[in-house]
């Protein structure tokens, strides 16, 4: 039941009828940072859009709130050989228009994702998320095979990023139509998309229930779900406190106490998938010297920043991987906060009187960057912060161009929780996210080897070895992995945040 105060006033004053419908409907409203850029599951690269789309479309595989991967539209999923995977689909999965999903739809979905120009002449921006997927073939009405061009062991961890569309529907409305119309197989149907304002969905009564492995298996609990777009954090928090929404994403750390102490609201949190670090320019003085890089790692007092600014809601990391990631090495040496050692290392490297450095940061991280600079300044560095508009700064640190700047407070997120999505792009020589200019032949060899290694134990060991080298060479200042924080109505049940960052409200309800 959700009737706003102001319409009560209106009704009271003018003795008018109550709102049309919904007076008894169970409904959950989400205050969300950004609108979806499209509702077409294959035509975006945005986790924000995916978070909305996932309520209306399901995938072959899905992750639960512990980040484990389960078959969703699939009944089973198995690897036949190094390059072949077989999917058995559930029978009786219906699209919102009542038609049944078959292998035809799945093949159509994956062809549309992978084939050049398959989306009305354009190519899906999600194509490379499927790596070397070459051919999707139908075995029978409910069985398909995925064939890769070469071994790519991360494939099962990448499949949860894709959702299955209806072939007949796409052929009817075209790629243009699919941007704003939905005929999905997820727990909610699209009612109305008010662009820039909200997305309204209602329960799909014939929903098959969702992943067998993720209990409970059932149709959605609530009648209606609304994603309401509120970009400004302070306003989003205000909307939660005012009872206008039941759940908000990106709750700012400093508002936690307010939300916790407010009767009727609570804080939900989970370990995120975005690693924070400071990129050091490994190609130029002073950071081309490993001693200076180590000094920088000893100079930053990570713990006090985590405790005081991040409210203790982050774990320090000594490499680039999340502790939840595949191939994480838990035994890496720790760079303790040690100003003396930092000064000594700087002196050894030829900077006995300290060294001037500039720390670049995006405007939204102003506080953290300033705190880091202050911390370095008591350990022999003279660091100054320079703020930039995000994409201009990234262009200055373009991996393909010569590097001229010194330090960059940066991060990399990888929802796949696999080194292939973060270790490889950030630290392999000349990789597309390697902005520090770090290059180590042994690390490259291990990463390339692991990328195609079918034996998961061997693969994990290769990543662990590579982490030891990277930790010792300190191409970055290793910082932390923050928790994702959500604010919620205290009566909200049946939904827990996951590192995936997806708000799928299939099982959620208000007590």
């Amino acid at each position, binding site marked *: 039941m959700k009737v706003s105060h102001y319409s009560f006033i209106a009704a009271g004053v003018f003795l008018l009828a109550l709102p049309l419908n919904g007076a008894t409907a169970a409904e959950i409203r989400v205050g969300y940072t950004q609108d979806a850029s499209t509702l077409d599951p294959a035509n975006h690269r945005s986790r924000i859009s995916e978070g909305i789309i996932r309520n209306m479309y399901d995938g072959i595989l899905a992750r639960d709130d512990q980040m484990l991967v389960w078959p969703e539209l699939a009944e089973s999923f198995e690897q036949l050989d190094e390059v072949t995977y077989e999917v058995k689909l559930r029978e009786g999965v219906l699209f919102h228009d009542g038609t049944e999903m078959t292998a035809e739809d799945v093949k159509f979905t994956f062809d549309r994702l992978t084939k050049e120009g398959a989306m009305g002449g354009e190519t899906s921006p999600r194509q490379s998320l499927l790596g070397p997927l070459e051919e999707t073939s139908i075995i029978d009405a409910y069985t398909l095979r995925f064939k890769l061009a070469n071994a790519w062991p991360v494939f099962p961890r990448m499949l949860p990023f894709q959702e299955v569309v209806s072939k007949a529907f796409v052929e009817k409305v075209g790629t243009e139509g699919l941007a704003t119309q939905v005929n999905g197989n997820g727990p909610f149907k699209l009612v109305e998309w008010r662009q820039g304002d909200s997305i309204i969905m209602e329960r799909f009564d014939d929903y098959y229930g969702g992943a067998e492995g993720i209990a409970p298996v059932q149709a959605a609990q609530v009648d209606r779900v609304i994603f309401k777009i509120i970009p400004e*954090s*302070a306003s989003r*928090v*205000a909307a939660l*406190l005012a009872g206008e929404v039941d759940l908000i994403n990106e709750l*700012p750390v*400093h*508002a936690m*106490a*307010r939300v916790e102490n407010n009767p009727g609201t609570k804080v939900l949190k989970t370990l995120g998938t975005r690693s924070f670090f400071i990129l050091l320019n490994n190609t130029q003085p002073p950071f081309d010297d490993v001693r200076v890089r180590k000094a920088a790692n000893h100079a930053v007092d990570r713990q*006090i*920043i985590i405790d*005081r*600014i991040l409210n203790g809601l982050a774990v320090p990391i000594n490499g680039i991987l999340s502790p939840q990631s595949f191939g994480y090495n838990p035994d890496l040496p720790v760079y303790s906060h040690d100003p003396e050692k930092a000064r000594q290392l700087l002196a050894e490297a030829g900077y006995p009187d300290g060294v001037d450095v500039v720390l670049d940061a995006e*405007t*939204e991280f*102003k*506080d953290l*960057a*300033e*705190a880091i600079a*202050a911390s370095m300044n008591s350990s022999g560095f003279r660091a100054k*912060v*320079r*703020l*930039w*508009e995000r*994409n*201009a700064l990234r262009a200055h640190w373009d991996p393909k161009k010569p590097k001229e700047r010194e330090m960059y407070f940066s991060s990399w997120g990888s929802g796949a929780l696999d080194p292939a999505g973060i270790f490889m792009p950030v630290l392999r020589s000349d990789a597309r996210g390697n902005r520090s200019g770090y290059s180590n032949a042994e690390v490259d060899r291990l990463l390339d080897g692991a990328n195609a290694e079918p034996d998961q134990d061997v693969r994990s060991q290769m990543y662990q070895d590579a982490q030891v080298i990277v930790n010792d060479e300190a191409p970055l200042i290793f910082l932390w992995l923050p928790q994702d924080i959500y604010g919620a109505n205290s009566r909200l049940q049946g939904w827990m945040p996951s590192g995936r960052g997806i708000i799928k409200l299939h099982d959620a309800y208000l007590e």
Partner: protein
Amino acid sequence: MTSAPGLPATSAESDRSILADNLREFRENSLAVAAAGVVAVFALLAAFAPWIAPHDPYETDLFRRLLPPAWEQGGDWAFLLGCDALGRDVLSRLIFGSRVSIAVGLAVILIATTIGTLAGLAAGYLRGIPDAIISRLCDILLGFPYLIFAIGLIAMTGPGFQNIILALAYKEWVLPCRVVRGETLAAREMEYIEAARALGASRLHVMLREILPNILSPVIVVATFRMAHIIIVEASLSFLGIGIQPPVASWGSMVSDGREFLLDAWWVSTFPGVAILLLVLAINVASQGLRDAFDPRLQR
């Protein structure tokens, strides 16, 4: 202000006595005088910031994070107005911030008024092609949405003091330009201008020495009004994340940084907000007083 030999001295002299009248009328407006006093106090704060501020405005201490003002529970009298998110003294940052806000306001207005006045004189006096070019340029700049240009410019060049001034000044000159053009069009038909021309004064001389002094009042009034506006707009740039570089703070960036804490640590953004309000209020009241006193069309 002396007039060239052989030219009638009327304009400069009558100008001086009008100025004296104007100033007298301004002085009689007690509210405006009080406002001018407030502006002076802020200017002094800015000038002597290092001696007045109780703390180093850049010194961070995370153990003082979001310390409340002295009179609130948990406050500390050493930090009268509390501390910000990095434990810096809000009062000291306010005092130092006045430098940035006033400097930005002054710089933008000086640049814009100078360019605008010259362009307006040229357009209004020369007319013809210069006028057409300047007018179309004004149209282009006014038709180009201001924040889009500012964001674009700063994304292009990176945030920084000069770039912010540039982003604020690029079209600010259009307003004085339009005012001056209109006044010049009227002034060029006046007798004393015709006389100066008849006596063979150069165009430059007529524009700068004869016309300019007589149309300065509205220019000054517009400039003071707009300076207040500039200080506000600088705050908007900070809101959009393209404001001044740390560790320096302007009042605008302090309000903007602190807005996130409005519910939990109101002092971080409220005090700079009040400071902006006071200064802008004072500048506006003073300039309204100026306008009432100076605008020739309002003379009895």
